[in-house]
């Protein structure tokens, strides 16, 4: 069976059992097959547009919430492996150490970030709260959270403070602190490149309604181009 037929059979669902599993395996790395599948997914979607929705039972959302809590609980309970290091080193050493540790603990070499910009956000006492790293030419954002607590009915919001005009522009809203890696959009990447520093604020759920940071700044940190830091060393 050629790839065009394979993709069609996969999307329509007539590909079953071991054949389907093999196709899914290939889809993880075969971009040409992915493109064929995407073509049919987009085209055949129109078959179902006409159908009405069915309101799900309320239990479905409750079930999702419960499963999400189960997912996040172990991560929240796990102590930071490197927490003891933070208070004892200077801000610059901390910056480099965090990046080195980050790179070292990535077990899969393919997963190691090709870092470019980094910011360590610390609270008023100088304790790091969040390390933000852009990697692979601004395609990925890596986050390393410390023991940041989110108050009930509140979210955290990350902002880039422009070195050109001093304006704060939003980078993301966080309801939880277990996310470690995010795709970075081109506008977000530009904001980081333009940023003198990043700040983390407490906001209402969903982020600042005014698109301006609140006065509750939990942490802030200078945004550093890592290539320049390496040259300096």
């Amino acid at each position, binding site marked *: *069976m050629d790839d*065009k*037929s394979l993709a*069609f*059979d996969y*999307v*329509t*669902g*007539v590909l*079953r*059992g071991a054949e389907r599993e093999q196709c899914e395996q290939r889809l993880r790395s075969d971009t040409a097959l*992915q493109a064929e599948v*995407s*073509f*049919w*997914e*987009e*085209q*055949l*979607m*129109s*078959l*179902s*547009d*006409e*159908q*009405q*929705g*069915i*309101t*799900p*039972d309320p*239990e*479905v*959302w409750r*079930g*999702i*919430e419960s*499963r*999400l809590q189960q997912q996040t609980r172990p991560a929240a309970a796990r102590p930071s492996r490197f927490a003891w290091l933070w208070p004892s080193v200077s801000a610059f050493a901390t910056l480099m150490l965090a990046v080195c540790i980050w790179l070292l603990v990535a077990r899969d070499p393919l997963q190691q970030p090709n870092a470019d910009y980094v910011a360590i956000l610390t609270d008023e006492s100088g304790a790091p709260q969040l390390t933000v790293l852009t990697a692979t030419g601004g395609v990925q954002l890596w986050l390393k959270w410390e023991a940041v607590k989110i108050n009930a009915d509140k*979210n955290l919001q990350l902002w880039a403070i422009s070195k050109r005009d001093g304006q704060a522009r939003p980078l*993301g*809203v*966080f*309801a*939880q*602190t*277990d*996310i470690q*890696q*995010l*795709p970075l*959009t081109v506008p977000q990447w530009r904001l980081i490149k333009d940023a003198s520093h990043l700040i983390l604020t407490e906001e209402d*759920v*969903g982020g600042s309604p005014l698109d301006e940071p609140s006065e509750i700044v939990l942490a802030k940190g200078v945004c550093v181009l890592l290539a320049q830091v390496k040259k300096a060393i």
Partner: protein
Amino acid sequence: MTVSTDNQDDELINLIARCALRDQTALKVLFERVGPYLNALAWRILKSKELSNEVLQEAFLQIWNNAASYRPHLARPLTWMASIARYRALDRLALETRIKDKFVAHNDEMEDLPGGDEPERSVGASQLRFHLHQCLTTLGDNIKRSIELAYLYGYSREEIAQQFATNTNTVKSWLHRGAERLRLCLESK
């Protein structure tokens, strides 16, 4: 429920991005917006409210977990989410051993779909739909119906063959010839 206008694509993309940032409120909004639509997709394949609700739960957990890997330039947000829901429904169907005569019942059953409003469509989405249906009608009734039975109702090749009192190889041939001609027709539009 309005799930497929172009402007709303941006809104859905934004909600998925917020899910990637672990914003649970965004997931709830997404669930309210597209949950009924995805539930209907799953229900058509599984013909069971209980099973479609279970699949919907799995689908939204997958949307949450995979939100960071969603790429708007590769798929429209609704297509990405619908594919997740459909594939989870097909997985679930594979676990079910029951074989029902869905073909006879499906027309009536679709009219009985409870809840929700007709999704609004953008000009672009309507054109896609118009072109698809125009092209499908050129394939002949058996091929058109086979594609619909597979895609919409989760029929296997064997079940389609049973409906048309033919053999599986014939159905396989119908689907592949149909795909080839459908693609040519869609690409010429």
